[in-house]
């Protein structure tokens, strides 16, 4: 029973990490930037979701509103900040470092602005369904209707994203622009627009991850939420485990991380919470530096 419990908790947490990892991968594929502000964007989206809940009283309105808000904000960041950076710091070592520093700075900036608008205290989003565990053979599981819902919505979103990428012209443009921007432009793809769209999709995925991470915990969040620090670390590490370039890799990386963390927490020691992702990352990088389904070594196009 404890084994089943552990796996189910792991898969639920893993699906949230996967969404965050997808956000990292989408941005990386669009502009070759590791966006550390992703956690800040997810946090901001959660606040937007919170505002929507208080105004409309429904979680089901808040979720799409948060996704839309996250998408718009991410798109703005790409258009205003990233394009400017690429224009002004396009050569030498600065070009490699500037975007990363910029996203780190943005992470801090977003958190300060949030603290200015909403204050530093804990706010709360109530889950749409019960987080009381299912009962099986008289025993109560940790796995709850809420966790089941999170899992289903996450899987549906991933399926939609996969359809978008594999079956539509827009998806072909997104993939082609990631692999070969010049060939894509010569084929008539508006690559700049596609890059912004990649950021927007990442913003929406991050928003869902942020809200689910919040309600899957105790529902509380603040500018200093440890839940969001964990989301940043786990999402990033899941993306790297998956090769940073692959959406499928991000999902596998996230699920793998979620399950391993759950096992360590339940069977070993809860104090290892923050260390486990890093140890897993190190092990994966030693064994398969290109990630679980990473592209062949050296490919940067």
């Amino acid at each position, binding site marked *: 029973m404890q084994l089943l419990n552990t796996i189910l908790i792991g898969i639920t947490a893993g699906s949230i990490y996967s969404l965050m990892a997808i956000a990292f991968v989408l941005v990386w594929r669009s502009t070759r930037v590791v966006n550390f502000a992703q956690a800040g964007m997810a946090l901001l989206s959660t606040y937007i979701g919170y505002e929507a809940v208080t105004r409309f009283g429904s979680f089901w309105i808040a979720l799409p509103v948060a996704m839309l808000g996250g998408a718009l904000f991410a798109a703005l960041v790409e258009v205003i900040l990233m394009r400017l950076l690429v224009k002004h710091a396009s050569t030498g070592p600065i070009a490699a470092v500037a975007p990363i520093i910029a996203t780190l700075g943005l992470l801090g900036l977003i958190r300060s602005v949030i603290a200015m608008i909403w204050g530093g205290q804990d706010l709360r989003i109530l889950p749409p369904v019960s987080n009381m565990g299912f009962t099986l053979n008289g025993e109560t599981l940790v796995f709850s209707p809420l966790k089941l819902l999170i899992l289903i919505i996450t899987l549906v979103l991933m399926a939609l994203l996969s359809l978008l990428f594999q079956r539509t*012209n827009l998806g*072909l*443009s997104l*993939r*082609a622009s990631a*692999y*070969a921007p*010049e*060939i*894509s*432009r*010569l*084929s*008539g*793809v*508006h*690559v700049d627009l596609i890059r912004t769209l990649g950021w927007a999709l990442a913003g929406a995925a991050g928003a869902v991850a942020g809200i689910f991470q919040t309600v899957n915990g105790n529902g509380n969040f603040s500018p200093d939420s440890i839940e969001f620090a964990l989301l940043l670390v786990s999402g990033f590490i899941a993306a790297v485990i998956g090769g940073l370039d692959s959406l499928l890799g991000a999902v596998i990386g996230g699920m793998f991380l979620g399950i391993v963390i759950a096992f360590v927490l339940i069977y070993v020691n809860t104090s290892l919470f923050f260390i486990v992702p890093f140890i897993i990352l190190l092990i994966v990088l030693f064994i398969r530096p290109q990630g679980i389904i990473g*592209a062949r070594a050296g490919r940067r196009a």
Partner: protein
Amino acid sequence: MSLNISNLTIHHGAICAINSVSLAVPTGKLAAIIGSNGAGKTTLLRAISGLNKPSHGKMSWMGESILDEKPENLVRRGISHVSEGKSVIPELTVKENLELGAIWRRNKNELSSSLEQVVTTFPRLGERLSQRADTLSGGERQMLAIGRALMSKPQLLLLDEPSLGLAPLVVEQIFQKIHDLSTSMRITIVLVEQNAVGALKIADLGIVLNLGKVVAVDHADALMVNPAVRAAYLGY
């Protein structure tokens, strides 16, 4: 005169890669631009398709300026560029590479007829539609690159060194196909080549570029027998 370039100058930083070049290619003709390494052939071709920004001069296609226009818009005006080195996307399938070439076109019926046309031109691609492009041979990749450009229904086709790295027999096939495109489909073609003999054989018009300047323009067959050109570029 359909493609018109006058006094075009292009700088790469402090280096002047193209120095006041003027040339004209009439509709439906095949122009070969030849010259040694570093002559500026690729730079010139990339300027026509909008990838390089010229510092001076004028360029027009069908009487309208193509200066300061982005490549993604020029392809909508009928200009397709196959860049150097088998420009296909290895991670995508053959079919996806071809569909990419037509991605800006809306009419679905036209698309399938374009695909049919490309497959008729290059039957080998038709047999490999669902394979990833990185499983193709060098010659097949070059055919795919040209096929992708054809999917945009070009009126002006810019080809950068299609013979690069291919076996002589395959080069001959590719050149034959390019010649067919020019004669049967009446596409205006600008062909940049190191393989000067092969290019001039199929071309109507030859342009010799040296150190960023045009040093000779003539009918292709006249250039072939021009003693100075023969000594410098044709090697016989």
